[in-house]
């Protein structure tokens, strides 16, 4: 009975209802889009970050994490890689040596980060070759005394292709690591490459006196979301309890935390949109209630129970919001789908965490649809409380007097 009444009331004043629905629809689409946009941009940042540098997971010697001493290395990397490569969820595995060194050339000095890796395996993981600015096309990645250097290193040391580069550091056995290399590749400007010197794995092992050892093994999964399960599955494959697998969130915890804080900032934007929509809905509903004060007074005078009336009003609001959501989902789907395919070009590339992005990415996810729906429903239920309360308190005689 009340449901019927509520439904009839909705369709009685079509213009008013359409106005409310439009308000809600607009709010829903806006929310869903913002959400999809923020998810999309963060995920593309994470994707760029992990696939260009850290990988999704990394395996270290536990003691290495505590004191960064090269001595605490991984001693059976080849076997470990073989084991890991059998796992179906793993896309690529690369063993690396990282360490600091002092580089000299043309009477200039620069502090550099040495990264030693197997050219093929690393290419599968970070696609570093795609970030090469110029290189000697006769070679396949850094190996032997041939190295790739970051743009900044090249600039500071005034190095060109074919120039030689001397590096000094300390080896794992306390010896003074020193050797001469030839620049065969220069990377484009990028935060991961700028201060780096890329060596072949064997050359790096020789340099640091780390025979057959590596400092960490980096793993790229097919699906970044699957890492908790992957960590559990990988643990027994490590062959030694002194090794530990950690996801990128732990490895680059400062980056991760900064991003999380940034995300928190976005909830405030979301909150403002919700508030805007809620106030708009409240406005239209309240207006319609005021218009109908006489009607409510009459209903009360005829003996309708106050709770029945309040229920009817609430039902009206909820029904409206359901209709709006149904339309909103279609609308939001269309908008998000469009932008997830075409993206939004920046007029100028933006940098975040040192990476450059020229396009805003919109992520298509159920979360982006569900969350705003819940938010809209809750806020309209909250909004419905106001007129319900008014109806409850309305005295029939006051209502009838109102004209």
């Amino acid at each position, binding site marked *: 009975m009340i449901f019927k009444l509520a439904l009839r009331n909705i369709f009685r004043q079509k213009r008013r209802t359409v106005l409310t629905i439009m308000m809600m629809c607009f709010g829903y689409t806006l929310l869903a889009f913002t959400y999809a946009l923020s998810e999309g941009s963060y995920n593309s940042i994470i994707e760029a970050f992990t696939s260009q540098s850290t990988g999704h997971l990394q395996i270290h010697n536990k003691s290495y994490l505590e004191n960064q*001493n090269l*001595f605490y290395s991984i001693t059976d990397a080849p076997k470990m890689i073989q084991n890991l490569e059998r796992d179906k969820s793993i896309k690529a595995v690369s063993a690396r040596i990282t360490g600091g060194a002092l580089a*000299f050339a043309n009477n200039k000095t620069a502090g550099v980060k040495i990264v030693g890796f197997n050219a093929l395996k690393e290419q599968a993981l970070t696609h570093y070759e795609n970030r090469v600015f110029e290189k000697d096309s006769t070679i396949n990645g850094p190996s032997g005394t041939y190295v790739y250097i970051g743009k900044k290193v090249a600039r500071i040391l005034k190095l060109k292709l074919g120039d030689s580069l*001397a*590096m*000094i550091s*300390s*080896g*794992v*056995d*306390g*010896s*003074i690591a*020193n*050797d*001469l290399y030839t620049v065969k590749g220069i990377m484009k400007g990028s935060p991961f490459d700028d201060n780096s010197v890329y060596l072949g794995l064997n050359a790096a092992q020789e340099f640091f*006196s780390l025979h057959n050892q590596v400092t960490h093994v980096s793993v790229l999964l097919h699906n970044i979301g699957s890492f908790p399960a992957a960590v559990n599955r990988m643990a027994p494959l490590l062959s030694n309890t002194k090794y530990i697998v950690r996801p990128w969130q732990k490895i680059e915890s400062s980056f991760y935390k900064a991003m999380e804080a940034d995300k928190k900032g976005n909830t405030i934007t979301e909150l403002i949109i919700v508030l805007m929509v809620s106030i708009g809905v409240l406005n239209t509903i309240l207006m319609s209630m005021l218009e109908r004060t006489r009607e409510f007074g009459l209903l009360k005078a005829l003996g309708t129970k106050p709770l029945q009336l309040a229920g009817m009003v609430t039902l009206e609001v909820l029904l409206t919001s359901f209709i709006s959501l149904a339309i909103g989902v279609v609308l939001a789907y269309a908008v998000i789908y469009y932008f997830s395919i075409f993206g939004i070009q920046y007029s100028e590339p933006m940098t975040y965490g040192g990476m450059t992005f020229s396009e805003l990415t919109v992520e298509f996810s159920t979360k982006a649809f569900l969350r705003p729906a819940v938010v809209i429903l809750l806020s309209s239920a909250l909004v419905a409380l106001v007129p319900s309360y008014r109806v409850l308190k309305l005295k029939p005689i006051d209502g009838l007097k109102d004209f």
Partner: protein
Amino acid sequence: MKFLIFSTLLFYSFTQATAQPMTDAELKALLKKVDRIYRSDTSHSTMTMKIKTPQFERSLTMESWTRGLDYTFMTILAPVKDKGISTLKRKSKMWNYFPKINKVIKIPPSMMLSSWMGSDFTNDDFVKESSYQDDYFAKLLKRTKVMVSIELTPKSDTSSLWGKVIIDIHAAKYYPIKQVFYDESGEKIRTLEFSHVKALGARMVPMKMTLTPHHKKDQYTEILYNKIDFDVPLKASVFTRRNLQKRR
């Protein structure tokens, strides 16, 4: 009262017996001997250094030439990886040379106290930038028939890592037995012990030195002299940058 005087007298005579005062000149002469125990006026030696830490153990064979305290030239003979790495010290300047990269690197004074080639010895230990005789105040602590103990505190213009150094010297043969190094707060930092004493001509020289840092577990550095020749004629060209950069 009588007893007190008697005991004071007794005590006095006792300390007299164990620590006969030494004149400053005598102390200086003794410290000069310690400073130059492996140097004399000129020296030419080969030695093997063994570095042991909880993580690794390695040994280096080196050849060294010295003239007085001011000039030192050292070059590594083995292992192959480090062969040819050389150190030259002239007065207060010091350089390392790395043949693989053909690079001479000047060691600034601030690095004098950092480790030499990953050992527990500092650059200063090798090149004797500071001398006990000139840069420290000496005080006789104890003197027995076999041993003289001297406490050294750095003079104000000496850039020393040490708050004090206590040296035990053989009383008759004048070679060092032990050196204990303390920091400014009086904490024991490291001990250098001398052993394998050998008669080289008229002098007695400990052929082995063992340096043990007290704050690092399972760690020490040993130097064993294979051969030392003293007062050999050395050309001035030995201690030059040109010689440093010569391919060996």
